């Protein structure tokens, strides 16, 4: 049984955007501009984090082994989703991960870092004047010609 069972995790109070999509929970961390995908078991853990439940109560609520919950909380902490993971023992998290691998057929919570699609966001163009916005591959010139080193349009 987990020794950090009394730890009460708290979500980051600010700068998190959540979206539910086809049973998965997606999270955007504004401080790091990183996004994460929680599979349904991890989403159950996330949902159970209310600032009052400890690890044991979360495990019960999410119908998961407490060590799996500990491992998941450790990953959530690393991802910047939790306020603090100081109450979690690092060795315990590592042990959970080994158990997680051995768990085989158990529904394992996963937290996947979502890769930011390269140049996928369609930003408006810039005039690229020396006094204005710089042009970049993601922010092309209205003329279509960007001098990348200077950020000016040709």
């Amino acid at each position: 049984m987990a020794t950090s069972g009394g730890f009460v995790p708290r979500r980051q109070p600010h700068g998190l955007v959540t979206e539910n999509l086809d049973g998965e929970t997606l999270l955007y961390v504004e401080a790091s501009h990183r996004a994460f995908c929680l599979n349904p078991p991890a989403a159950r853990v996330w949902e159970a984090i209310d600032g009052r439940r400890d690890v044991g109560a979360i495990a019960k609520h999410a119908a998961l082994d407490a060590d799996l919950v500990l491992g998941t909380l450790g990953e959530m902490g690393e991802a910047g989703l939790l306020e603090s993971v100081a109450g979690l023992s690092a060795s315990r998290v590592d042990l959970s991960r080994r158990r997680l691998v051995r768990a085989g057929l158990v529904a394992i919570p996963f937290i996947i870092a979502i890769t930011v699609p390269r140049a996928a966001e369609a930003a408006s163009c810039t005039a690229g004047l020396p006094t204005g916005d710089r042009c970049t591959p993601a922010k092309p010139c209205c003329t279509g010609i960007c001098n990348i080193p200077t950020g000016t349009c040709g």
Partner: protein
Amino acid sequence: MTSGREPLALALAGTLRHAWRSAGGPMELPAVDLRAWAERLVAGGVGALAWWRIRDIALAGAPEASALQEAFRFHAVSAARNERDLQHLVAHFNDAGIEPILFKGWTIARLYPHRALRPFGDFDLLVPCEQTERARGVLRELGPDLRERADVDTAETLARYLPDRSEAELFARARPESLEGARFRVLCLEDHLRLVALHQLHHGGWRPLWLCDVALLLEAAPVDFSWERCLEGDPRLSEGVLATAALAAELLGARLPPGTPHFVVPAWLRRAVLHGWIHGYESMPPSLYGLRALGWSRALRAVKARWPDPVSATVHLRAPFRTVPRPAVQMAECLRRAVDFARRDLRWRLGMDSELARVGKGVVA
């Protein structure tokens, strides 16, 4: 475009055919390198849209398709963030007595069957000219994050795409709407379609997402959609709008509104757009400022790299789409840019533009 790359470009078009609809219909498996196929879709801003199209067929299980699903997930959570911030942004504009027109980005994204399908990186806002400073003041108050993600335009700055629409016309035709109490306007569909079509032509049409936007807007046209209103203004630019609509119909299967004037897509336009889809945004070599320091061989390479694409050259020069050979148009555009460059270079040398001089000296050094 070399013929070797054409199958890939056509595979992209096949994947995106009707992709903006709730159900895209049957689709053939692309007979191309799936890794390159997925890479070009993601780079073109249509990774999520492609995932939407293939999500229920066997292709979704291919390892290469995971990049598309990643794009879908990322845009889903980004869209949630953008929507939250947009309400906040517009509410602050309202507090300052400004009711902006929203265009492109979110106003198009919300027309897709899922908000994750159309990524956008910034908020495009149009305000009356006399409210520009006030609008910029609002953005300053909102902090760097929102300031960097919001572009304030006026009819004057938007003239790069819509030179034949006055501020009064754009605002009078725009439709009032609200988002959780925040009031804004949206361009009428005729003006919006014209803007979106000309915007992509100005950029050489390299992003497939832009043509999907045109297809979506064409199919969103209400029964009273007026081509007359959409095409009023500069006839050469109107020809470009029609050409883009016809291209969306030809490549993506867009349904054209009733009464669409007949237009045959010129082969060069189709070829150039497909070339752009494969090669993407082509960045330029170092600035031409300080040419003498760069040397003639590098200068020649720089000029070669700046050879304009036929699409943007045509629309920048307002050249006809069908009667003049494209190399002539590209040559003329190259000359226009060279004259513009020489003019600015002269200003730099004469010290008439201190900011430009600072940038130029940095490059030479």
